[in-house]
């Protein structure tokens, strides 16, 4: 199976004046296509930085980020923009919706930038808005939406089109339990179709939907747990009372 995302010896530092702050140290990961991956860890542990490096929003101080077999360090600005438009769907923690565009226009924008006609982009956008339960609000503007509605719009925008790698920073932070769960189900279906989802979360119940949970502490990858089968658990649950 091909790798959707690899990080080889990736480290990243932020520099503030004369102070160097290490954000990530020596990260090695190799995520196969079709996998759903959650990143957990305390605030400041490096979750958001890892996602930004994976999406080419920032370049690592050291090491290599490889998306679908191609090292993105070698990309010029045009190729990087193309990667972000065609391959990678990104859900930002602050949503980053464009206030002057409607919900449907926000979601169809990546497709229109990629050369799709307005009508076909809108059709795809509406289908995605339907999947996140936002179809009724398609013609509203972001400022008229609640935090949770803005977040679902941002998720729809990341999922629209055939982008095979979805990176999401706290995608359910503003959602209630049941809406959050429905988004997790949607992301799992996406993975079943062969796409890859990597998301950072503080919500451990949502992290548990992932095939693989990665634990970050102080910028280092300290542990991971894999989802296996639940047969023994099921047998234990259904044992004679």
């Amino acid at each position, binding site marked *: 199976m091909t790798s959707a995302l690899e990080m080889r010896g990736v480290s990243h530092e932020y520099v503030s004046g004369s102070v160097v702050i290490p954000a990530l140290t020596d990260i090695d990961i190799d995520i196969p296509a079709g996998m759903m991956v959650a990143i957990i860890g305390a605030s400041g542990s490096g979750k958001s930085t890892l996602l930004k490096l994976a999406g080419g929003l920032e370049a690592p101080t050291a090491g290599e980020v490889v998306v679908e077999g191609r090292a993105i360090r070698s990309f010029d600005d045009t190729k990087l923009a193309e990667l972000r438009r065609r391959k990678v769907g990104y859900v930002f923690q602050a949503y980053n919706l464009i206030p002057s565009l409607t919900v449907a226009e926000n979601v169809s924008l990546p497709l229109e930038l990629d050369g799709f006609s307005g009508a076909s982009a809108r059709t795809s956008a509406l289908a995605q808005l339907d999947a996140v339960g936002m179809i009724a609000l398609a013609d509203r503007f972001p400022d008229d939406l609640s935090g949770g509605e803005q977040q679902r719009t941002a998720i729809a925008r990341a999922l629209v089109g055939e982008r095979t790698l979805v990176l999401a920073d706290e995608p359910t932070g503003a959602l209630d339990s049941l809406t959050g769960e429905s988004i997790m189900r949607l992301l799992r279906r996406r993975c079943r179709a062969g796409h890859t989802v990597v998301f950072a979360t503080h919500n451990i119940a949502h992290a*548990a939907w992932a095939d693989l949970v990665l634990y970050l502490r102080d910028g280092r990858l300290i542990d991971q747990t*894999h989802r*296996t089968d639940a047969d023994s658990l099921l047998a234990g649950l259904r044992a004679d009372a």
Partner: protein
Amino acid sequence: MVVRNGLLVMLDSGPKYGYQLKMEFEHRTSNVWALNIGQVYTTLARLERDGLIEHLDSDAADSHQLYRITDLGRQEARMWFATPVDHGTPRRNELIMKVILSLDSGQDPRQVIQIQRAAAVKRLQEYTLLKTDVDTDSDLAWVIMLDSMLIETEAEVRWLDLVEARVVQSGRFSAENLADSPHFTAADARRTSASEPSKELKEAKR
């Protein structure tokens, strides 16, 4: 108590046989709690002794005993729903003791916490897997039960996160402080929960 009151609640909707009650109990709890038929009959005998149910004269052609609820039993069933469940005194919890004892043991308490957290998250992943393909409308009882177990495990993880934050805030366990202490190795930790990252990733990839 749950079997006794459960049988009463089911008899409230009409007379039933012992075997019928067993099947209905298991069906309504999504087969999570299997009932022993012997336990059903013992409980029915006690309910009858206490005047909460009575048996109907059995049909000559049918050896099954049919039971029905009495007014007293109906009152008892209503009372059960109207009263909160008493969980009793909190039990001594090994995990709490282990974490507390790790604080002054020369171990890195964060490692003790992470081993437990990884095990709890794995359990959460398994419960979630059971929930993934369930139709939440048609199998509501099963989902409610899974949600309960999920949230209980989630609470454990949240507690571990909080303890870790407190340990870090206390400043007693910085990397420098632990450099010379005889803490266990990563291999010890792997034996109990997590495994070496790159190896697991390679296996998943296969």
